[in-house]
């Protein structure tokens, strides 16, 4: 049996702010197997990025706290390095510095702010390599050139600065940097959102190829269901800090069950079908500062009933590997 690279169990993350506590992530559990890509889809503020930052040990401080839950990365429990104990904090930082860029690589949304404008791109890639491997400067530089070639940037541009590259090229450099130490897990936070469609297609194609070559597991964070259909194996739909639907692509795209997932698909203008009017659901996502006791999608749901107001539904397995968090669906299951 394949041991998962990343396993998150019952993760709860809160942000303490002056005006109250924001419940950003609530009981999220997920698993990524080696070589597998999981898509995490949701709206702005759903908690997608918070999950990524938690895995990297980058929760904004002060304020961000892991309240409960366990994250296991490549067989090692990393949540024990996330305590808020002051005496431990040096040790914690040291641990995360060791795994970042080495075991876990990260690709950010905006490549311009992810690169240092005063160093050449080659130096920045070589820096990651030298930090995590005992190699000479020359060797690291050579590896950096190889990485650049691998992502489709000519090695002669080693000495160019970030501003001399276009957006798509910069994102390629960030990808080269993230993969330089052959990480087991790659976290991509909206990697193509800032790019044009034709460039996005190129970058997705590149990521697909590299994933195969390195057998890297990937957590793909995006708001674009099209990108998920394009590159992922599994998909988790997240709403107000909770996973509301989770399964393989076939489960989520061919047989979506949760009212929120259905609403997402209905709201997308499609290239293949003609619709006079989009089905928009009114209202906004519940405020994470003030989450209801009951189902957080209740106020916007087309299928709500009185019973929904009395309980917070649990994630129920509707078919092997396909989980849905909705009272209506779990009661249907029970009746069967």
């Amino acid at each position, binding site marked *: 049996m394949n041991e998962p690279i990343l396993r998150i169990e019952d993760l709860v993350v809160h942000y303490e702010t002056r005006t109250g506590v924001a419940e950003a992530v609530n009981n999220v559990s997920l698993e990524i197997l080696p070589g597998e890509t999981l898509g995490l889809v949701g*709206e*702005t503020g759903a908690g997608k990025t918070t999950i990524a930052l938690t895995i990297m040990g980058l929760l904004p401080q002060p304020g961000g706290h892991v309240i409960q839950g366990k994250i296991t990365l490549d067989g090692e429990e990393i949540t024990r390095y996330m305590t808020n104990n002051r005496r431990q904090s040096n040790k914690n930082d040291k641990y995360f510095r060791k795994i970042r860029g080495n075991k876990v690589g990260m690709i950010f949304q905006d490549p311009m702010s992810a690169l240092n404008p005063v160093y050449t791109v080659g130096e920045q890639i070589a820096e990651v390599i030298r930090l995590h491997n005992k190699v000479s400067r020359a060797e690291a530089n050579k590896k950096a050139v190889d990485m650049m070639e691998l992502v489709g940037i000519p090695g002669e541009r080693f000495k160019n600065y970030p501003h001399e590259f*276009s957006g*798509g*090229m910069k994102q390629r450099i960030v990808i080269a940097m993230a993969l330089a130490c052959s990480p087991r897990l790659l976290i991509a936070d909206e990697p193509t959102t800032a790019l*044009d*469609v*034709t*460039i*996005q*297609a*190129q970058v*997705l*194609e590149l990521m697909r190829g590299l994933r195969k070559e390195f057998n890297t597991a990937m957590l793909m964070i995006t*708001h*674009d*269901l*099209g*990108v*998920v*259909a*394009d590159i992922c194996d599994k998909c988790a739909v997240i709403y107000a800090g909770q996973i509301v639907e989770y399964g393989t*692509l*076939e489960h989520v*795209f*061919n047989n979506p069950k949760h009212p929120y997932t259905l*609403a*997402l*698909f209905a*709201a*997308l*203008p*499609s*290239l*293949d079908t003609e*619709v006079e*009017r*989009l*089905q*928009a*659901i*009114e209202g*906004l996502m519940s405020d994470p500062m003030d989450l209801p006791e009951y189902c957080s999608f209740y106020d916007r749901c087309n299928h709500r009933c009185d019973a929904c107001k009395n309980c917070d539904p649990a994630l129920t397995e509707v078919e092997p590997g396909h989980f849905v968090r909705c009272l209506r669906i779990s009661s249907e299951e029970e009746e069967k």
Partner: protein
Amino acid sequence: MSTLLEIRNLKKYYSVSGGMLHAVDDVTLSVEKGETLGIVGESGCGKSTLGKTILRLTPPTDGEILYNGQDITKLSDAEFKKLRPDLQMIFQDPMSSLNPRMSVKEQIEEPMLIYKTIPDRQEREKKVLELMDTVGLARRYADTYPHELDGGRRQRIGIARGLALEPKLIICDEPVSALDVLIQAQILNLLQDLQKEKGLTYLFITHDLSVVKHISHNICVMYLGQVVEKCDTPTLFAHTMHPYTKALLSAIPVPSLKNRRERILLKGELTSPVNPGNRCRFAPRCIYAKEKCFNCTPELQDMGGGHMVACHFCKEIGDDGNGTTDAT
């Protein structure tokens, strides 16, 4: 139906070090009254510059902009000011187009104060509240400030401001690209309802082909300052002719496991719009490019039924175009 806006050979060049940057190069198009014309293209193709030039936010280098048959490029500032209420704009990022120190009420009231359309204060306030109802903003938000609201509501303020002077033509510059899907659907529906109700004409600028397909009657595809394909929406998607439109269409990730398109991957990125020279601007990235493409700029030619395409070889390439293959 009558033509509300007609643009003839519009050019906007910027002088930069190294030559002239051709932001908008010889664009000709027309918009019928009560219709939506979609302008699609990637960043840097000149679509926003086109919008700004039409509203005289930046003076054109050459060409004519006829609004109701009147060339607005030749008007004096004072004469144009009289026309301005007819021509309004909705911007992409509502946060940077709204004044952070003005309440919602003041923002919506501002255009009416500037143009003195409703001198009476109480009348004006009534109009503000009516506008808020029209765009679906609850009246209780009248005294809040933009930072207190979410992106969707901010965009509704932008739309209410655009409507305040009862315009005829609204240029929508990426009005939904900063919004989440569910909010995007709300705003698109609102724009369509307003069009039906008030007979508005839209020039809808976006990079998103699926949005433009949903909302437009006619579409112009732009590449590096030039229109490469222009026709009504159903034709564009049923018989895609230009290699760039084909590539653009195939590059969109489809949120479905069925009907996967065969992907045409373009080589490289946008070439420089500075001194583009006499050649097809898409040639360096085109998979069909031949020698002629590098020596001569293709003209827009009618391929039948008003389907205009600027490509030397589009007849040979054919319109098997949308490349939908059933993968299931």
